[in-house]
């Protein structure tokens, strides 16, 4: 039992989360353990988590994508631009916004998988290009978006904000895909040993490209959702989101060298960061300290994790 907790980050993170929540509830009984507070925490991390699901998939396969933050802005701005300037019907505008994001993922994936460009360089370059496109499309931002567009992200179901439902749906779908389908399980093998995977008949290049397409498309979903929630599309949306998401996914059990991680870990990692940030706000910790504390938490968690694994599994 204890060994399972140590070996699987999902369980150890869950235990840690429970512990943090209990302590916070005891210290701030009036403000922390309330329905409003938790639904606010979840709402705040819903956009990040949708992106994190795609990032988790990429990290399992041994790659990552730095352009997701820019794609969030691009997808939101493109959709809003089409709605406002051309008055396109809502489904068409959203469809084009998603296709645009998919195309960015296709370019990333094709160049990385088939042309051997380093993922970090490729997506770093794409991060700048796509941010520029978002600025071109929206200028200083697009406001006064149609009612039905805003309804996507601002309505509630069963008293819970829609973005939270979208997030849970995404996590659920991809959890099933990665655990239960032959196609997606291949990502674990690619991350585990790319050469052996190729010799085992896995089409590594194609799968890698698909990974980048999924990651960018999910970022597109997140971008459209974010502008709907804000009722506006801003070219600055999603700044720094890529690093926040990678942090969450690493906390959630992924490894930069690939092969490890589970989709629910993306949610738990984001949740952990969200709760810690929330507690610091409640405790009136200054904004400067919040960043420092989050960084320290990341390093300590990984350090303890490594030490425990060494002790209990006898390997590094």
């Amino acid at each position: 039992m204890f060994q399972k907790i140590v070996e699987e980050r999902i369980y150890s993170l869950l235990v840690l989360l429970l512990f943090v929540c209990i302590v916070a509830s005891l210290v701030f009984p009036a403000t922390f353990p309330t329905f409003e507070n938790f639904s606010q925490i979840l709402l705040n991390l819903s956009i990040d988590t949708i992106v994190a699901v795609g990032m988790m998939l990429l990290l399992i396969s041994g790659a990552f994508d730095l352009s997701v933050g820019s794609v969030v802005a691009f997808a939101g701005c493109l959709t809003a631009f089409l709605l406002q300037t051309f008055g396109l019907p809502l489904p068409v505008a959203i469809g084009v916004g998603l296709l645009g994001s998919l195309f960015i993922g296709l370019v990333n994936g094709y160049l990385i998988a088939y042309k051997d460009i380093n993922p970090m360089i490729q997506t770093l370059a794409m991060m700048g290009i796509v941010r520029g496109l978002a600025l071109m499309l929206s200028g200083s931002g697009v406001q006064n978006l149609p009612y039905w567009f805003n309804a996507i992200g601002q309505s509630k179901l069963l008293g819970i904000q829609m973005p939270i439902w979208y997030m849970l749906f995404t996590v659920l779908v991809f959890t099933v895909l990665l655990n239960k389908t032959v196609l997606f399980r291949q990502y674990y093998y690619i991350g585990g040993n790319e050469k052996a995977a190729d010799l085992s008949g896995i089409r590594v290049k194609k799968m890698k490209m698909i990974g980048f397409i999924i990651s960018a498309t999910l970022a597109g979903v997140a971008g459209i959702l974010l502008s709907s929630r804000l009722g506006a599309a801003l070219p600055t949306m999603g700044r720094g989101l890529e690093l926040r998401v990678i942090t969450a996914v690493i906390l959630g059990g992924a490894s930069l060298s690939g092969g490890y991680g589970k989709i629910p870990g993306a949610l738990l990692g984001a949740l952990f960061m969200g709760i810690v940030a929330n507690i610091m706000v409640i405790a009136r910790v200054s904004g400067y300290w919040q960043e420092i504390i989050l960084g320290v938490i990341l390093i300590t968690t990984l350090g303890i994790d490594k030490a425990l694994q060494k002790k209990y599994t006898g390997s590094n």
Partner: protein
Amino acid sequence: MTQLKLTGISKTFPGVRALDRVDLTILPGEIHALCGENGAGKSTLMNILVGNLQPDEGTIILNNAPVIFSKPQQAIEFRIAIVYQQLSLIDSLNVAENIFANQQPVNVWGLIGFNELYKKATSLLRQLDLDEINPRTLVSKLSPAQKQMVEIAKALSKKPSILILDEPTASLTEKETKTLFNILQNLKGQGTSIIYISHRLEEIFLLADRISILKDGKHQGTFLKQDITKDELIKRMVGREIKALKVEGHSRDEILLSVKNITGKRFHNVTFELRRGEILGLSGLVGAGRTEIARAVFGVDSIDSGEIILRGKTLKIKHSSDAISHGMAYVPEERKRLGLFSEMSIQDNIIAGKLSNAVSGRFYSSTKARTLAENSKTKLNIAAPGVHQRVVNLSGGNQQKVVLAKWLLTNPEVLIVDEPTHGIDVGAKFEIYEILNLLAEQGKGIIMISSDLPELLGICDRIVVIKMGEVKGELSRRDATEEKIMAMVSN
């Protein structure tokens, strides 16, 4: 002038006695050839000599004083240098920086003196008759032969009194080999002792003053060159004892796979046939192109011309997945790098060849995968507490059985195994022979690449000998002897 004396050196690895009380004396200024088959213990002995490995017992005496090398740097201090078979150069640095790696000349400011560096490199290269190599060229731009020569220059930059060369001519042309021999003769004239390891017996007789022979980790004697003939030398090297394998041929008449005139980067015009129920050996020196041929047949590397025909149908293979769907399987050499998902479980490894085997209903079922993996584990006798164990924690033999189990689940007609028993203990070796034998009995065709001659002779129905990318000949089980194969590959 340095005299080196090894006495009673023994080294045991799990399951293998690699060296058994070996005595060896290297005189100052001699070229001493070290012969023996793959697995005879040559590399282990040299690794002990340069401090990469520590002997279990025995002493190394250098100039009448015993020494202990616990790390490679210490051997360098005693001016023992080795040129490895596998290159140790860094592609992204230039020739001079590689030669003087970690010993670059510094100027008065404590910074690297690049002028001095290039001057020293140029003079060293000239001494080696390598004027055509510019010391500022990146190593990645050099040919394999030039890399080998730079490697030798790197060893010489340490001004060794004992220089060890491990198969240095494997990638050299005839002309370069001649140059190398001249250099070695010069060094010998200056008093450097040279230990020369090679499979090419002609070279040995051309170059060496004395010849030592190892077999099964045991020293078989040291001879002056003029006191031994080539036939005698081969006789002393071979005949390594291998417990009799009770293998009867299962070969049937039906031709399963036919490879016709295939040509690729490292092989030319290769033709052979594989029958149902047959174990076909591919023999040859390391680097002869055996692995490249296997990879081409499996579709990993492309071929420029020729045909691969499986059960009468010409195959168009673009990716290993095509080969697998046609019923082929390939157990690669270097199982850690190419064969295993080390951090993953036995179960995940075994199912990797055909994930769809574990589908129940529409979804991947880890319960089904576990059942399949547990069956394989029992069938192949994989020693591990459970199938959830990560393969990194298994012994080499059990790891290899995991790779085999993976391929057996794809139900192949043709199984290619590349050095399947490399680095695994004797017991596991025999289990693997038995598995291969059983598969042949079931009518599958097996292509086995191995550098272990007794092993090939023990279980193969036929042996195709490959030399420098070409088929040199074919021997049936009845005709094949180690002497014949050695003569074919080393001439």
